[in-house]
């Protein structure tokens, strides 16, 4: 039975099929070599990258792309660090020219300390980029109404945060994630806040179509082992969601027969 559930379970975004429902970052690893091993262990086939000025004065630094096999790994440029719709649109356009696709992980940050999104600017930037032919994957609050507005603006997916970026606090508002899944006609990817494997599993059990994370893997004591654990966690959560869990009950229900007990 598991075979049929697995076999029919494609992860499709804007017509493109991915093998893995885990999307991971390329930042903050101890080294590029560790990152490459973690990518391999994660089974992910999409990674996020940031767009930044080339270091002109010091050309000795190795290039990130020397450690990513772009024939296997889909590159998703982000607009991290942008605080206005204009900045995000400009960065998205640069990412498109530097990269190989018209996809963007859209971030418009509203506050430095929490890195919570400025949803108003996010919707505006989504509208502009969709008009320019971008496939937009917006990082957003765990707010079902904002997610609906993003979808109406043409977003290919919605990516509500589980908790603040890099916090590792886990899914803070599970009911909202569940409602966002119920409301959305596009894939829902929980982006940010995962701390450990059970957080990723929980996100998937709530019905998320995918999970995006960076720090949980890159910041772990053993990033390669954590990457593999996240691969299994996302898969476990997805299978559990599709298998259909039992309803919660307030009292016990015996698993063994109540008839035929010796001595009664």
């Amino acid at each position, binding site marked *: 039975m598991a075979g049929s559930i697995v076999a029919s379970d494609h992860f499709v975004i804007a017509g493109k099929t991915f093998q893995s429902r885990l999307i991971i970052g390329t930042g*903050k*690893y101890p080294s590029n070599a560790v990152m490459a091993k973690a990518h391999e262990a994660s089974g992910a086939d999409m990674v996020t*990258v*940031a767009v930044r000025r080339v270091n002109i004065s010091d050309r000795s630094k190795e290039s990130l792309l020397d450690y990513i096999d772009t024939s296997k790994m889909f590159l998703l440029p982000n607009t991290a660090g942008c605080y206005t719709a204009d900045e995000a649109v400009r960065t998205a356009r640069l990412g498109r*020219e530097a990269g190989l696709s018209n996809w963007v992980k859209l971030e418009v940050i509203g506050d430095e300390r929490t890195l919570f999104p400025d949803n108003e600017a996010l919707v505006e930037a989504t509208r502009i980029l969709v008009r320019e032919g971008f496939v937009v994957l917006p990082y957003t609050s765990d707010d079902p109404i904002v997610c609906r507005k993003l979808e109406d603006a043409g977003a290919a997916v919605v990516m509500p945060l589980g908790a603040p970026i890099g916090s590792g606090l886990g899914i803070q508002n599970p009911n909202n994630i569940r409602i966002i899944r119920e409301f959305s006609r596009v894939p829902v990817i929980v982006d940010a806040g995962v701390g450990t494997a059970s957080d990723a599993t929980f996100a998937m059990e709530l019905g998320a179509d995918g999970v995006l994370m960076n720090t949980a893997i890159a910041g772990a004591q053993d990033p390669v082992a954590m990457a593999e654990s996240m691969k299994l966690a996302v898969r476990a959560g997805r299978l559990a969601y599709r298998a259909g869990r039992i309803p919660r009950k307030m009292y016990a229900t015996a698993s063994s027969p109540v008839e035929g007990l010796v001595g009664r």
Partner: protein
Amino acid sequence: MFIKSVNITLNGDPLDVPGPVSVTALLESLTIDARRVAVEYNLVILKRAAFDQTIVREGDHIEIVNFVGGG
């Protein structure tokens, strides 16, 4: 051939480069792989195919970006 020097703003900093030169030549002189960067020329993002024909002149503002690690 006599090559003059032009002063441009590159990634926010002033820089003297031999020129006028094409964007392709500028990237080469900076040992930057053109296939891995995007170039913004006076706020207009260039297609890679336009690197050869676009000439960097005195006072131009150039941004050269690439991918770095991020989440």
